[in-house]
């Protein structure tokens, strides 16, 4: 087991290295750099020493060096917790993204918790009440959740909230709390604002999860041991929890591998639509202005979180399912 974990962690290093290199090169690929647009603006305003200033800025951001040099400089900096300078306001990237990363992680964790809880309850209900009204309602909601893209749902909710309820549901906290230290009141405000994005990002994942849990549980419920248990007179609830549910619950844990990238993708676009102070809008802005350090840092953090999440899901799976053993078999 320990051996397996160690190997997985060691494998993460080259993976992240390759991803970071690819991402860095891709962002830098288009002609021009983040200074170009700033200088164009200065030129348009008729600033006489704009061109002089361009060289200055390029030197400041290290853009006069080659791509390879800049990449390794950036990577070396990461080990010192220095992610380079962001082009936009000449601020260190680390200062710019700290709170956003925390809020993003809070939002994504909340979304996954939401998906788990909701799909668990609905899935179990639908499977135990097969072909009844509740089952059909659940299936219908699941289907719509799969079909309606979550960013469209976000726009529609935003519209309904604005026109019919006079709410502005953008943002993640009341304006008074922005840039304030964490407090109980701020926490309450953030949780209130989290509800809509969490529901919006969670719908499609929930839909898939309900379908899978329902199908698995239905399979298990048909098996002999359930009949035996029933014949022995076990109370239905105890029977359900003790045996079939334990088998059917596997996809929950195993699917975090699929769920995590999906939730992260969803959170990027939904937070752009709802203009949340998370990583989504900033990443989009950084990509549009070719702010290489900022964008690459974001993507690297996303990749790291995903890889760690996958590892955790594999380990959880092993802990929950006695049939899975690591390291015992050699790879074919």
């Amino acid at each position, binding site marked *: 087991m320990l051996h397996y974990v160690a190997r997985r962690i060691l494998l993460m290093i080259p*993976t992240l290295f*390759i*991803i970071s290199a690819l*991402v860095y090169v*891709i*962002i830098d*690929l*288009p*002609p021009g750099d983040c200074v170009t647009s700033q200088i164009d603006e200065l030129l348009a305003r008729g600033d006489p020493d704009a061109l002089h200033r361009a060289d200055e800025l390029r030197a400041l951001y290290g853009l006069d060096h080659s791509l390879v040099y800049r990449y390794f400089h950036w990577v070396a900096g990461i080990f010192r917790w220095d992610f380079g300078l962001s082009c936009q306001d000449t601020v260190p990237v680390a200062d710019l993204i700290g709170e956003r990363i925390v809020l993003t992680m809070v939002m994504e964790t909340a979304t996954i918790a939401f998906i788990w809880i909701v799909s668990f309850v609905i899935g179990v209900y639908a499977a135990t009440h097969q072909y009844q009204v509740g089952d059909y309602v659940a299936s219908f909601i699941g*289907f719509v959740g*799969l*079909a*309606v*893209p979550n*960013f*469209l749902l976000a*726009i*529609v909710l*935003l*519209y309904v909230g*604005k*026109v019919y309820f006079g709410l502005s549901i*953008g943002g993640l906290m009341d304006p008074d709390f922005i840039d304030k230290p964490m407090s109980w009141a701020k926490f309450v405000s953030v949780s209130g604002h989290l509800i809509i994005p969490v529901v919006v990002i969670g719908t499609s994942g929930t839909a898939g999860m309900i379908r899978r849990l329902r199908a698995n549980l239905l399979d298990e419920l048909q098996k002999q041991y359930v009949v035996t248990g029933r014949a022995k007179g076990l109370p239905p609830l105890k029977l359900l929890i003790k045996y079939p549910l334990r088998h059917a619950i596997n996809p929950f844990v195993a699917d975090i*591998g699929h769920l*995590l*990238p*999906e939730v*992260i*993708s*969803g959170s*990027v*676009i939904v937070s*752009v*639509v709802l203009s949340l102070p998370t990583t989504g809008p900033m*990443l*989009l802005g950084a*990509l*549009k202005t*070719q702010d290489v350090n900022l*964008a690459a840092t*974001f*993507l690297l953090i*996303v*990749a790291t979180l*995903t*890889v760690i999440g*996958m590892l955790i899901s594999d380990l959880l799976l092993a802990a929950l399912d006695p049939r899975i053993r690591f390291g015992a078999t050699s790879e074919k």
Partner: protein
Amino acid sequence: MTDTTPAAKPEAPRPPTPHYVNPAPWDPYVSERLTADQEKYYMAGQWKLMWWRFRRHRPAVVSAAFLLLIYFSTLISEWIAPYDLHTRHAKYIFAPPQSVHFFHDGSFRGPFVYALKMERDLDTLQRVYTEDTTKPQQIRFFCSGAKYDFWEMIEGTFHFVCPPDGGTLFIAGTDRLGRDMFSRIVYAARISLTIGVIGIALSFTLALVLGGLAGYYGGWVDSVVQRITEILKSFPHLPLWLALSAALPVTWSPLLIYFGITLILALLDWPSLGRAVRSKLLSLREEDYALAAQMMGAKPARIIGRHLLPGFMSHLIASATLSIPSMILAETALSFLGLGLRPPITSWGVLLNEATDINVVAVNWWLMLPVVPVILVILAYQFMGDGMRDAADPYA
């Protein structure tokens, strides 16, 4: 062998056996004679069986018909749309959808619209459109209207529906430049619908080639392809798509951007299909018939293409169909965020890009209308894909 001995003489007819023998040839199915239906079923080929099974899935058939219709409509967008994609109506900016009426003053007049009158609200400075109910304007059908170049080639003026003479026909309202939303949605279908199909064709090819190599050869080829698919599958797609499409040079022509975007979508989409190809090939290449083909000296390409692929092609097509909607959605999302297609190429996502500002949408709700065809098409693909997946294994 040379024939030295004279050919054996035909046997002399045996003496008749003492018991009766029916001279007619024996029919092995005599005990259970197949009905015509059963015989048809047993004789049918694989694809025919699949079609029969698909036909039983009602929602899938309806969806398939709907998709056929909507794809066909993209061939004749010019005839369906009453206006051109880019025609601006400076007098009708943000005009609300005009409703089609049939009765005027209690008498039947056929389909007509009332003329729109624009006034400015002096407090909010917003445009307020009212219908002038004194002047019914007849909608024309099979008529000659705005000029267009059919598929950019043949000039024409024919439309199925035209605005009334001297009037307007904005059944889905107009946007901030006074362009007819309905016509724009019709033209945008061309781009949005084809991007899914072209994208899936690219990703299908990639999956076949790379998954095929990995599954057939195994060894280090397999390991490399496996690692790549693992990385691609585990990484969230949207941020990568964003990064890649931001990398497309601004100087490219809209058409090149279109192909660039489809390529980007395909690049991240093939791993799941590729994995399916690989695992199927791994199991099928152990079959006797694969070995037999190898013994007879068939080349790998022939063995894969001729003997192994047909065995699971139907599954592949079904799963490919199920991933078309995600492609369409991805393009919509990218264009919506402003990093996908750019005007003058118009897709549903590009249209929705106008609906980013909630304050504009709150006043002009019809800017959200492109959502409707997106959801309908996605649903139709889901249903059709489900039906195809069920039909893909007709012997089950």
